């Protein structure tokens, strides 16, 4: 009897302890979220004078406009921007530390969208801004039903051509077959990334239309040269020669894909200059491997994330095929599937001791978007960065004239081929599919399909289905394409990309003009632009939107993760970042 009660007590204790354990992660997590932004905010207070204009923010800007500005003390901090200043109510001036010919392409990118200064001040610290963006775009976010859908309404006061439909719905599912089924049954008007095997099905169906996306991306097999045997360039070259890339593209990529001759796609100016990549030659590869001291091969791992992207439509199959190909070379590779976030974190820190499968889609159509990010001096993804590559790229990025920059890019591409930090495999074609009756349907090479121009045969609702749920709608601190596309319906940047293409068009600014040596860019804002909350766009909104991302010591430098990754890599570094 006594032992029974003793055991019931022990059992109860066990249950209670399990409950406590189960609840524990939740308990610190909740205070942690507000605490995390509080941390950078605390040391930031002494730095507050960096924004002299902030306390005197007038409600009615047109009456007495006090221009905001922020300047770096010098260019020693490693970034590209020197000063962002509002010159008058409708003029913003960006001063650069070095000439930047890619400025318009970058500024048009959706990670630099503009929200009202007052809204950033109100909603940033409470993280409300992540779910309630206030933009100038053709659609207003109406509701976000987590895990299910996002509903947008037409913005009546839009400055440009208003949206065709009154309502826009975003839905998502990760399975290609499920997306196609929804499209076929008519519950959605358009889907992203149908499975390559379904291309024929869609083309054969007269009710549906397929829009192939230009292959502005790269899929590559990366090495981390910190870890032997990949520290030996001969091993990397051997793998480069042993991979039958035609076989991969022929079997696992949809029509419209091509084998990569260079890291950057040829559609981008100066993308594929220099020597073409190695031909498949198993015998030469074996000889090289033996030369390097591995006549019988070695054991390694293939890391990848099971996420479908335009550059890698069949991750599992490609990984398995690479495994089989490496076996022909004598290399026994174990396949390791990783969770997407962990995989990106580990690979970008250079901690994967094997080869990893990753890719890149163009954010803006410029060669720096491909090469400078991957082979920069501070990127450890492929191990120790190669000065032969990054020094050349650094010099090339400051030359405005593409023809003048070409010899430098030839040199850089040849160095990449010689040193093999990775093996470029394919530029993957992908597509969107819509009901045939949807007018204005398109696919964009930058994956930023613009829903405002689409007309679903006169119906007042357009339903779009993509691969995944957006992470947040504060895209100035997001890198995920699924989030960016949702933001692009609501938020706008200073410049914009042509719908379904890559040319840079005016956006919130009617123009951004450089000075003679490309170090000062002056943007003239469009007048009479209304935000979704009814306020009007002025230069301070632009400065504020930029400064909270640029200045790491700003109390409002919060965002979602606070990393502002696109800012760091497009403008080299954040101010006051330590």
């Amino acid at each position: 009897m006594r032992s029974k009660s003793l055991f019931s007590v022990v059992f109860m204790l066990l249950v209670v302890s399990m409950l406590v354990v189960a609840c524990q992660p939740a308990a610190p997590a909740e205070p942690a979220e507000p605490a995390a932004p509080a941390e950078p905010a605390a040391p930031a207070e002494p730095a507050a004078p960096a924004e002299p204009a902030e306390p005197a923010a007038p409600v009615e800007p047109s009456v007495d406009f006090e221009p905001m500005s922020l300047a770096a003390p010098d260019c020693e901090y490693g970034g590209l921007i020197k000063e962002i200043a509002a010159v008058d109510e409708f003029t913003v001036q960006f001063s650069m530390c070095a000439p930047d010919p890619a400025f318009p392409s970058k500024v048009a990118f959706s990670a630099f969208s503009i929200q009202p200064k007052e809204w950033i001040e109100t909603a940033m610290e409470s993280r409300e801004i992540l779910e309630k963006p206030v933009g100038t775009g053709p659609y207003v976010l109406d509701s976000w039903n987590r895990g299910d859908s996002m509903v947008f309404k037409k913005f009546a006061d839009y400055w440009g051509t208003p949206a065709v439909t009154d309502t826009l719905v975003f839905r998502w599912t990760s399975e290609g077959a499920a997306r196609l089924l929804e499209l076929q049954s008519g519950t959605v008007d358009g889907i992203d990334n149908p499975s390559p095997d379904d291309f024929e099905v869609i083309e054969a169906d007269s009710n549906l239309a397929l829009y192939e996306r230009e292959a502005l991306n790269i899929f590559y097999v990366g090495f981390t040269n910190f870890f032997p045997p990949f520290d030996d360039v001969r091993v990397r070259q051997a793998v480069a020669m042993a991979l039958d890339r035609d076989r991969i593209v022929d079997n696992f990529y949809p029509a419209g894909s091509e084998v990569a001759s260079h890291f950057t796609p040829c559609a981008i100016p100066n993308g594929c200059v220099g020597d073409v990549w190695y031909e498949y030659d198993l015998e030469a590869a074996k000889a090289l491997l033996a030369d390097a001291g591995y006549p019988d091969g070695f054991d390694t791992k293939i890391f990848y994330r099971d996420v479908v992207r335009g550059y890698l439509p069949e991750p599992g199959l490609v990984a398995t095929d690479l495994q089989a190909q490496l076996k022909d070379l004598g290399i026994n590779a174990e396949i390791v599937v990783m969770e997407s976030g962990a995989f990106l974190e580990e690979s970008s820190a250079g901690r994967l001791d094997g080869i990893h499968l990753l890719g890149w889609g163009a954010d803006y159509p410029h060669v720096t978007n491909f090469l400078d990010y991957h082979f920069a001096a501070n990127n450890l993804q492929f191990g120790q960065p190669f000065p032969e590559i990054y020094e050349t790229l650094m010099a090339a990025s400051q030359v405005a004239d593409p023809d003048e920059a070409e010899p430098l890019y030839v040199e850089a591409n040849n160095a990449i081929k010689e040193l093999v930090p990775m093996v470029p495999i394919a530029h993957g074609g992908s597509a969107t599919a819509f009901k045939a009756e949807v007018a204005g349907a398109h696919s964009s090479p930058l994956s930023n399909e613009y829903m405002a121009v689409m007309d679903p045969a006169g119906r007042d609702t357009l339903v779009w289905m993509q691969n995944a749920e957006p992470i947040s709608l504060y895209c100035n601190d997001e890198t995920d394409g699924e989030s960016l596309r949702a933001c692009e319906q609501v938020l706008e940047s200073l410049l914009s990309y042509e719908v379904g293409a890559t040319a840079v068009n005016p956006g919130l600014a009617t123009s951004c003009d450089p000075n003679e040596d490309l170090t000062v860019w002056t943007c003239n804002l469009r007048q009479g632009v209304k935000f979704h909350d009814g306020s009007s766009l002025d230069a301070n909104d632009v400065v504020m939107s930029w400064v909270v991302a640029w200045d790491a010591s700003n109390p409002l430098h919060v965002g979602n993760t606070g990393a502002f990754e696109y800012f760091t890599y497009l403008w080299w570094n954040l101010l006051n970042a330590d």
Partner: protein
Amino acid sequence: MPPVSLSNEKQKDYRSNSLWRLTLRRILRQRNAVLGLIILTFLLLMAVFADVIAPYAPEQVLIGLEEGIKKRQDPCIHLFGCPKDQPQHLMGIDGNVRDQFSRVVHGSRISLMIGFTTIGFAIIMGTILGAISGFFGGWVDNLIMRILDVLMAFPSLLLAITIVSVLGPGLQNALLAIAIVTIPVYARVVRGSVLSIKEMPYVAASRALGGNSFHILINRVLPNAIPPLIVTGTLGIGTAILDAAALSFLGLGAQPPMPEWGTMLGSERNQVFTAPHLVFYPGIAIMLTVLSFNLLGDGLRDAIDPRLGQSQN
């Protein structure tokens, strides 16, 4: 052990012989169990002679070996009108351009191996724990059974997923996880039989003749606790194969390029509509295997359960 040699070897042989013969006779009288037995024999033969039956190695990529071969090609069977000049692929080609039939055949080896090893391990551990707790009783019993109760309180697949996530994905870890979550079932069965058997007159007799606890447990109690264990074990093999397939489907079990049925299902789950043969055949294989073990297990239970036996005879 001179004092106990009273136990008549001949008599014991006769007794056990008749039990097994009787059981077999009863099984053969049940149509369902016979069907299960036939399917199982078929699967066992397939596993043993996989190398002979399968036309290709399970990991052989056929790109470049056969002209015009495409991934996820439909089955080509000469008997059903596929042109004779094309190489025959009974179950078609999988996503990595390998012969699906060869993979399904070789998969039987892995699945049967999974079933027998996990349940074998679980039975051994369960028997030890159950026998100790049933035979000695008291606080030992309480301690062991309460711990196993906690294990049983979790949904088994969920617990297996947790264990694999901690140990890291891979076939070995998946097997270990499935074995661990099934231990309580066998421990309970053994404990139950031990509890009733240890009160039997022949156990008392053995004790009276001076047999020590260990001797009685091994020679008198456990042999008689085996029949219900066999029933539960046979049914358990089916569940274990299913769980292993589920883990592999989720990418936690067998890793590519291993031809495991669950992995094959998982990697082609998106192609249900475009290439149904790639999910149909592994699915059917899993179903048949599990079905055979379930039918056989049911038959065994009917055959061995004394109450049912008496009513039948």
